[in-house]
C-alpha cells in the first residue's frame, strides 16, 4: 500500500531491550484507563469514558485490517453489530434461564459472534485486496444492514432488541447497574484487548500481515498465501470488533440496526485514520478525538458532521499518517534538541491559520442559518461574539478572513517548511534520523 500505512512500529528482534518509550506508552495507557474516572467523577464523564473505551477497541480492531494488513474496509460495523446483537440475545437467554454467567463474560459471546461471521464472510471477501476488497466490504455491509430490517424476529426491526444488564448474576457484589461499574468492565476489556492485539502484531502471522500489506506479490515467493494471511487477519479483526459491539450492547442495553450500518462503519474508519494507522496507539487517540468531537461539536453547532468531514479531508490531504504521525514527526527534533528552531515558525503560522479557520466556520454557520431559516435575519454567536446575519459586514468579515487568511497562512507555512528543514538537517547531523 502506501505511505500512510508505512510507519508501523517495527522494532526488530531486540525483545529484551525494549526502549523506555515502549513501556512508558503502555504504562500511561493503563494508568489513564484506571485512574481517569476517579479524577473526573461526574456521571457524564463516566458515560464519555465508556464510549471512548468502546470506540478504542473497535478502532484498534479496525487497524488490524487497515494499518497492519493494508485492507480498507467500508463494512467493519457488520462484526461489531452482530457481536452486539448476539450479546443482547445471550444476555436475555442468561437472564431467562438463570444461567450462572456473570456480565463480564458476555463480551466473549460478542467476540465469538464476530469471529464466526468473519470466518464465513471473510473467505470470499479477502481473496483480493485493494479496491476490490473495499467494494466487497461495502456491498456485504449493505447486505447485512438491509437484511437486518427484514429478519425482524432476530434484529427487532427498527426498534432493535433491548436487554437489562442487571438481570445477570452479580460478580463480587458488582451488579453493573451504575455507570462507573460498566466503565470498569469496558476498561478491563480495553486493556485485555489492546494487549492481545499488540501481541498479535508480534507473532509470525502479525509480521506477515505487514509483509502482505507492503508487497503481496513477493509474499507468494517466500512460501505464503497472501489470501490466507488476509483471511486470518480479517478473522481477528472480526473477533475484537465483536467484543466492542458486545460492550456497546451492555452499555446501552440495546442493539439496533444502526450498530451494523454504513454510518458506524464510516465512524470507525474516521477514528482510525484521524488517529493514525501507522502507530499501534494511533486508533486509540483517534477514538478519543472522534468521540469527543461527536459529543461536544453536536452541542455547539447543527452542522457538526460537516466539520467532521472537513477535518477528515484535511487529514487525508495534509497528514495522511494521522495525528500520531504528526506528533511522532517531532521525535527526532525533540531528541536532538532542535525543536525550538521550529516553534517560532509554528507560532507565526498559527495566527493566520486560526483566522482562516474562523473565516470558514463563520461562512459555514451563516450559510447554515441562512438556508435553514430562509429569512436571513437573526444573530449567531461565534466564540461569544455576536454576528448580525442581516448585516453585510458579517458576510464581508467571513470573506476577508477566509480568503485573506488562506493566502497569508499559505505564506507562513512555507516558513514552517523551511524552519523544519533546517531543524531536521541539524538533527541529522547530530545523529537522530527518525
Amino acid at each position: 500500500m502506501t505511505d500512510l500505512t508505512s510507519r508501523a512500529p517495527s522494532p526488530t528482534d531486540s525483545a529484551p531491550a525494549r526502549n523506555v518509550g515502549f513501556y512508558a506508552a503502555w504504562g500511561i495507557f493503563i494508568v489513564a484507563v484506571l485512574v481517569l474516572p476517579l479524577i473526573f467523577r461526574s456521571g457524564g464523564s463516566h458515560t464519555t469514558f465508556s464510549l471512548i473505551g468502546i470506540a478504542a477497541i473497535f478502532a484498534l480492531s479496525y487497524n488490524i485490517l487497515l494499518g497492519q494488513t493494508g485492507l480498507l474496509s467500508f463494512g467493519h460495523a457488520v462484526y461489531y453489530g452482530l457481536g452486539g446483537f448476539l450479546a443482547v440475545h445471550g444476555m436475555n437467554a442468561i437472564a431467562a434461564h438463570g444461567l450462572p454467567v456473570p456480565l463480564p463474560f458476555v463480551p466473549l459471546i460478542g467476540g465469538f459472534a464476530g469471529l464466526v461471521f468473519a470466518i464465513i464472510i471473510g473467505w470470499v471477501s479477502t481473496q483480493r485486496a485493494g479496491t476490490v476488497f473495499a467494494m466487497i466490504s461495502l456491498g456485504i455491509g449493505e447486505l447485512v444492514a438491509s437484511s437486518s430490517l427484514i429478519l425482524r424476529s432476530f434484529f427487532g426491526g427498527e426498534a432493535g432488541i433491548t436487554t437489562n444488564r442487571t438481570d445477570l448474576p452479580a460478580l463480587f457484589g458488582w451488579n453493573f447497574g451504575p455507570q462507573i461499574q460498566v466503565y470498569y468492565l469496558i476498561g478491563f476489556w480495553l486493556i485485555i484487548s489492546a494487549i492481545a492485539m499488540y501481541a498479535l502484531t508480534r507473532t509470525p502471522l502479525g509480521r506477515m500481515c505487514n509483509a502482505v500489506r507492503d508487497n503481496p506479490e513477493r509474499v507468494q515467493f517466500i512460501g505464503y498465501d497472501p489470501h490466507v494471511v488476509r483471511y486470518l487477519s480479517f478473522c481477528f479483526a472480526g473477533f475484537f470488533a465483536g467484543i466492542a459491539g458486545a460492550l456497546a450492547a451492555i452499555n446501552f442495553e440495546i442493539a439496533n440496526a444502526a450498530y451494523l450500518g454504513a454510518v458506524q462503519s464510516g465512524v470507525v474508519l474516521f477514528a482510525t485514520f484521524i488517529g493514525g494507522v501507522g502507530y499501534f496507539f494511533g486508533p486509540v487517540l483517534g477514538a478519543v478525538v472522534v468521540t469527543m468531537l461527536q459529543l461536544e461539536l453536536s452541542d455547539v453547532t447543527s452542522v457538526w458532521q460537516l466539520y467532521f468531514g472537513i477535518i477528515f479531508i484535511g487529514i487525508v490531504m495534509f497528514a495522511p499518517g494521522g495525528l500520531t504521525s504528526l506528533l511522532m514527526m517531532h521525535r527526532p527534533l525533540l531528541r536532538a534538541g532542535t525543536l525550538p528552531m521550529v516553534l517560532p515558525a509554528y507560532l507565526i503560522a498559527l495566527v493566520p491559520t486560526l483566522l482562516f479557520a474562523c473565516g470558514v466556520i463563520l461562512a459555514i454557520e451563516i450559510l447554515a442559518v441562512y438556508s435553514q431559516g430562509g429569512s436571513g435575519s437573526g444573530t449567531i454567536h461565534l466564540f461569544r461574539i455576536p454576528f448580525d446575519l442581516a448585516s453585510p459586514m458579517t458576510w464581508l468579515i467571513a470573506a476577508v478572513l477566509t480568503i485573506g487568511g488562506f493566502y497569508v497562512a499559505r505564506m507562513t507555512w512555507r516558513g514552517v517548511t523551511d524552519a523544519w528543514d533546517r531543524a531536521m538537517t541539524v538533527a541529522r547531523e547530530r545523529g537522530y534520523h527518525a
Partner: protein
Amino acid sequence: MLELIVISTLNGVLFGMLLFLLSSGLTVIFSMMGVLNFAHASFYMLGAFFGYQLTRWIGFWPALVLAPLLVGAIGMAVERYGLRQTHKHGHVAELLLTFGLAFAIEQVVQMIWGKLPMDYRVPALLDFPAFTIFSTNYPAYKMFMLLVSVVIFIALLIVLKRTRVGLIVQAALTHPNMVAHLGHNVGRVFMMVFGVGTALAAIAGVIAGPALVTQADMAALLGPILFVVIVVGGLGSLPGAFFASLLIGLVQTFAVSVNGSLASLFGPLDPSIGPSLLTDVWNVTIAQIAPILPYVLLVLMLIVRPMGLMGTRET
C-alpha cells in the same frame, strides 16, 4: 401479467441506462487514474439539486445544460486541487479523500436544502402520458429520460471510437500502465476525464431528479449499488458496466413489482411456530428483498466469477 412485464422492462431499462450514465464515468475514471471515485453518486446528487434549484430560477431546459457544467467544473476542481495533491500518498488515500468528500457533500446538501424531499417537478412540456399500454399511462417524461440516456450512450460510443481522447481512454482501459506514458499533458487529460465523468453523473441527476426522489440521502442510497454494478461488470470494463447496469436495473425493477413470497406460494406456516427467523424468511415478499438483491448478486458473482462479468484483470 404481460402488462407488468412490459412496464417493468421499460422501467428496468430506464433505470439501467441511468446507472450506466454513472457507471461509465466511474469506470473510465477508475481505469485511467486508478481512483475509485467514492463520491461519484454525490456528483449525481449535486446534479439533481442544482437541476432543481436552477429549474426554479431559470427553467428546466437551461438547467439541464447548466447544472452538469457546474458539477463538471466542481469535479475538475476536485481533481486539480484534491486528488492530484493526494496522489503521492497512493490510491488508498485517494479513495479515502473521495470517501470524505462524499460525506462532506451530503452534509452541505443537507445544510442548504434540508433533509426533506424537494418539490422537483417534471417540466410542463413533458407532463403528459406518452402512450397507454393495457390501461397504464406511460409518462412522456420517462421516455424523455430514456432518450437522453440513449443519446448520451451513442455520443460516448462515437467519442470513444472516433476521437483522439477516445483512443487514449480506450488504450487506458486495456493497458492501464501506459497512461503514465501519455506525456506532459497527462494532468489535463485526467482533469478532463474527471470533469466529464462527473458531468455525466450530473446529467443523470438532473433528469432523474423529477422522476425519482430528490433528497439529501439519494447519493448514499445509490452509491453502493453503483459499486455493485462496476464490480459485477468487472472493474475497468465499459461493456461490463453496461450489461451489469441493465441487469441490475431490470432485476431491481422486477423484484419491486413482484409481490410473491414463500408464504403466498406454499401457504402460511403452522401458526404454532410463532415468530422466528424461519417465519421471517417465509413471509418476506420479493418486493421487500428488492433492495438487497444487488448485494446478493455481488456475493454470488464473487463466488462464481471473481473477475466480474467481463473483467479481464486483477486489481
